[in-house]
């Protein structure tokens, strides 16, 4: 609530603001995870910590999740490649998955679109699709694993992100590449720099040898086979190299931020 209050701006209709805020929570149940702690009241006796107090349970869970971020970063092996598969293993049809229906997916005009590059980079020029298409591309057939549990094998072709980071003179000692996207309600997600520099992390322009269709993130997605699917931004409009943790659409709602595979 404290956070919401901070967001109130003089002159802005508070009711409309709350209405908008509720829309950002596609499923109210999402916010209910704390209440799950209450049904565990009996466990208080055994564990000695007050599970009944939902805010302390939430605090504890958040702290463990931060520890899990650090643990996953520690065991992340930059030389471990995600397994690759033959083309015959590709899942058809490859599922569309988002927090909105496919009809609400961003419709971007490739001719107008530009990738904005910000933050700790030497060259902050914006890139047109035509310019990006000229960069060397590689193909990967890897498994996309959703945080929900299902998985699907797809074929993605594009430029390794680390090549692009080198090209724009990014400070690769920075902590994150933060992506902003055109999805409704503004999807964004931070990617830790070591994962951004992983050889298989890709600025993707093609799916299954065809120009990336709207369903899978036209004009550009970031394919990260060492992360869960929700850390693979689609409809990317900007990239910022930064030392600040700027949060993310799903990360802010409770998904573990590192979420490495």
């Amino acid at each position, binding site marked *: 609530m404290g956070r919401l209050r901070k967001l109130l701006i003089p002159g802005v209709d508070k009711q409309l603001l709350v209405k908008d805020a509720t829309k950002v929570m596609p*499923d109210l*149940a*999402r*916010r*209910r*995870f*704390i*209440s*799950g702690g209450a*049904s*565990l009241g009996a*466990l208080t006796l*055994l*564990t000695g910590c007050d599970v009944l107090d939902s805010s302390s349970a939430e605090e*504890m*869970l*958040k702290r*463990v*999740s931060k520890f*899990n971020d650090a643990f996953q970063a520690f*065991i*992340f*092996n930059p030389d*471990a*490649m*995600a*397994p690759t598969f033959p083309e015959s293993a590709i899942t058809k049809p490859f599922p569309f998955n988002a927090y909105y229906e496919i009809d609400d997916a961003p419709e971007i005009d490739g001719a107008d679109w530009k990738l904005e590059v910000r933050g700790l980079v030497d060259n902050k020029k914006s890139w047109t699709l035509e310019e990006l298409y000229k960069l060397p591309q590689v193909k990967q057939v890897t*498994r996309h*694993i*959703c*945080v*929900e*549990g*299902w*998985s699907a094998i797809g074929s993605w072709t594009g430029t390794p992100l680390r090549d692009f980071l080198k090209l724009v003179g990014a400070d690769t000692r920075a902590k994150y590449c933060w992506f902003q996207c055109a999805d409704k309600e503004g999807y964004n997600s931070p990617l830790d720099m070591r994962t951004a520099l992983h050889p298989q992390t890709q600025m993707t322009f093609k799916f299954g040898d065809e120009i990336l269709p709207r369903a899978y993130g036209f004009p550009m997605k970031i394919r990260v*086979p*060492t992360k869960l699917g929700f850390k693979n931004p689609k409809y990317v409009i900007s990239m910022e190299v930064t030392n600040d943790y700027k949060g993310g659409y*799903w990360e802010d*709602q*409770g*998904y*573990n931020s590192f979420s*490495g*595979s």
Partner: protein
Amino acid sequence: MSSLTATRTTTSPSKVIQPAWVRAMHWTNAVAIILMIMSGLQVYNASPLFRSLTFSHSITLGGWLGGALLWHFAAMWLLMINGLAYLITGFATGRFAKKLFPISIRGVISDVTAALTFKLSHDDLSKYNQVQKILYAGIIAVGIVIVLSGLSIWKPVQLQYLTALFGGYDIARYVHFFCMSAIVAFLAIHVLLALLVPKSLRAMIIGR
């Protein structure tokens, strides 16, 4: 102090059946496994393996997928650290060798028959019968497999050889689910029998 030692040696029924480390780890495991099962069922609901099988909110933990994953990936540390300590102590103290083995098929069959006809003796709780031996040894094995299959779902790239051992990511999910089902089935029998033989429950609480 000397009088305490004296009573212990003279009265044999008061001998410790379940040492303190077994009791502490047993109840820690009980908390961890219940948290893991309840949050795991909520995670399962996000993408059910079987179309007609989903679980009611009343038995799940976390409220939604994100909350359930927070619980699951917190309780896993409790489960894994406690479980590892239990395995190490169980082997090092010789408790596993002494209590759980040997197991013979004939012995299991005759003890199952005796149990079903209510002829199985529970006079000496310090000795496990063949049914207990196979169930306890079996559930430890299932515990190891559920942790390994869980790790291979969590880290299919970093631990890809482990994931491959299970036949790949998708099969590892099924293995993880069936291990959970086996643990729930074990729990049902285990709790029922503990209630039918209350002194066994007492031994797991106060040790004797």
